[in-house]
């Protein structure tokens, strides 16, 4: 038997091949770095450089939260060294104001909830993170909120990023429920790579054993429950507006508009940063479907990226990006929507041209995939208050 042969082989195959080692290192860098805990966070200013740090630490527990950061400046104030943002939540980690960046530190254990926020001018940005939904919540989503959808394996259903214009009481939120509501309740037409082989084997088996050995008939090989099992969502966020305001604020479609990459490429200090998964499914080990949302807030602007990443192994690759850009002083908000898609094999072949190490590692990296897949759709919208 083949196994015995392999057993005998085990010893003769020892020894380290340098090419394998190098490729292993590369692969390691590429695929595993992201999963390894970050040893260092972006450097905070030292205490000597920023005397406010000490005050902050002392005041934190005792002072009224609203007075912790009372140095709220007018929007017209020169913004070189001055701080004009407000952090209201007492659970916020120390912010840039006080010597370091606000990076909400997720604790994966219940019943903790992170809900930090930051205010700059008219804009309030907040994020919320909790563990995956429990059975009671899941049941509610399954039977009521998302009736008809077989839910993804991991639903961070209480996670959200909210961008609010306080003055106009206009809100754009990225939340899990609304994203999943856009998953189609129909057959996506996509099948796992070995589907035909699997079905053929079952059909053969069924005919061969027509003497009730097997329980299945033709109907068992049809899909009863139709929904898009890839959980593809073209979610662009949820807009909520206070009805008191007579003016309705809507995005205007204008594909000519471009995100100001120059401004976003500057290394302006990040005052607030968060990164979260809204839902994820491992597609029964046939790839991955994940919706991720992250935001960075600088003194003058913010960028939010909501990325849906789908990889069906040996079948296809799909990325759907929604970017939100806000220019605080001009009260401009831009929403850009992009869709990338290609055959798995095509993306993989592009990789082989340029790299020698494990190409499949790259297919787990959504940034690499975006850079190596054709753009299928791009839409842009703008809103000015």
């Amino acid at each position, binding site marked *: 038997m083949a196994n015995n042969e392999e057993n005998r082989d085990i010893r003769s195959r020892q020894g380290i091949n340098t090419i394998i080692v190098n490729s*292993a290192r590369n692969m390691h860098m590429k695929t595993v770095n992201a999963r390894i805990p970050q040893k260092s966070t972006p450097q905070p200013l030292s205490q000597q450089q920023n005397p406010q740090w000490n005050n902050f630490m002392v005041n934190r527990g005792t002072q009224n939260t609203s007075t912790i950061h009372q140095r709220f400046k007018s929007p017209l104030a020169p913004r070189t060294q001055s701080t004009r943002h407000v952090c209201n939540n007492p659970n916020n980690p120390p912010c840039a104001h006080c010597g370091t960046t606000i990076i909400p530190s997720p604790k994966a254990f219940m019943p903790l909830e992170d809900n930090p926020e930051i205010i700059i001018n008219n804009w309030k940005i907040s994020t919320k993170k909790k563990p995956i939904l429990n059975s009671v919540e899941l049941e509610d989503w399954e039977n009521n909120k998302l009736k008809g959808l077989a839910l993804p394996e991991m639903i961070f259903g209480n996670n959200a990023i909210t961008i609010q214009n306080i003055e106009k009481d206009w809100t754009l939120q990225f939340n899990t429920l609304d994203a999943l509501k856009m998953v189609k309740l129909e057959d996506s037409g996509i*099948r796992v790579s070995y589907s035909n082989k*699997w079905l053929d084997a079952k059909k053969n088996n069924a005919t061969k054993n027509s003497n009730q050995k097997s329980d299945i008939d033709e109907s068992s090989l049809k899909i009863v429950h139709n929904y898009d099992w890839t959980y593809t969502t073209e979610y662009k966020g949820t807009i909520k507006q206070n009805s008191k305001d007579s003016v309705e604020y809507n995005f205007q479609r204008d594909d000519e508009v471009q995100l100001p990459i120059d401004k976003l490429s500057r290394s302006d200090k990040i005052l607030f940063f968060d990164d979260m998964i809204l839902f994820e499914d491992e597609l029964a080990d046939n790839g991955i479907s994940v919706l991720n949302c992250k935001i960075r807030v600088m003194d003058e602007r913010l960028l939010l990226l909501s990325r849906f990443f789908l990889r069906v192994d040996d079948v296809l690759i799909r990325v759907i990006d929604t970017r939100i850009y806000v220019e605080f002083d001009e009260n401009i908000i831009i929403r850009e929507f992009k869709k990338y898609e290609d055959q798995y094999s095509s993306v993989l072949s592009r990789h082989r041209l340029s790299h020698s190490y494990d190409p499949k590692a790259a297919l787990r990296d959504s940034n690499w995939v975006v850079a190596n897949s054709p753009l299928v759709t791009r839409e842009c919208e703008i809103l000015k208050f």
Partner: protein
Amino acid sequence: MDLDKIISLIRQGKHIHEETVYTLCLNAQELLINEANVSKVDTPVTICGDIHGQLHDLLTLFDKSGGVENSRYIFLGDFVDRGFYSLESFLLLLCYKLRYPDRISLIRGNHETRQITKVYGFYDEIMRKYGNSNVWRYCCEVFDYLSLGAVIDNKIFCVHGGLSPDINTIDEIRDIDRKQEVPHEGAMCDLLWSDPDEVMTWSLSPRGAGFLFGKNEVDNFLYKNDIELITRAHQLVMEGYKEMFDGGLVTVWSAPNYCYRCGNVAAVLRIEDDLSRNYTIFDAVQAQNGVGNAIIPTKKVQMDYFL
């Protein structure tokens, strides 16, 4: 070879020499080859679900449930992938199997295959820890010898995934030639991959491969085999376990805070002599200082100038 010493090294997360892994794997194969596809187990016994390389949580599991020195265990598979300590978790279970052969049963999960471990972490982990894939290959050889199920006191059937339309009686599982890579189709594949669902009959998964089975299939299987419960793992459950179909089937999940970020609790199920069910719930090992440490990673947000 000194199993107790190796066990102690593994428990500390120390590096295990390639030669040692080789010997362990070879000995384990010799032991497992003599086991049936479906092993018979006596009560009382503790049933454990997916582990997924979370060594430190596996240690908690043993602590909370009496330990292999004192009680019997059935592991329902998926020892490797996802977590950072797939090798140590698997080796610890192998060592226990060698040290206490009749106190621990290891059932194969769908992750105990060459194909899946290449994509979902175990292979990467071995390359990272050893610089070559030998250890991964030794372990994959053992995977092929793991059993496909277990029966407790002729009354409880244990399997990783679920039922198969090709399998009416537990005896039919004994006919499968299990010593191979898990095929993409057939009874062996179904046992490791299928899921229970609210369906009227055998149904094809919308993914185009794999079966869903419902209450009817479970009731039939229980009746035909004169058993009262199917225990399986394979699916994440926030509360650690989930009973379905009027208690005829239970999913047990034993990887707390799965992937270091789901925030779920884990469970093991102890079956007493009178077949009563006792669930023990446990939490993930906490990262120290809230910032993670060498053993337990936290998914601390990493700031970057993304565009």
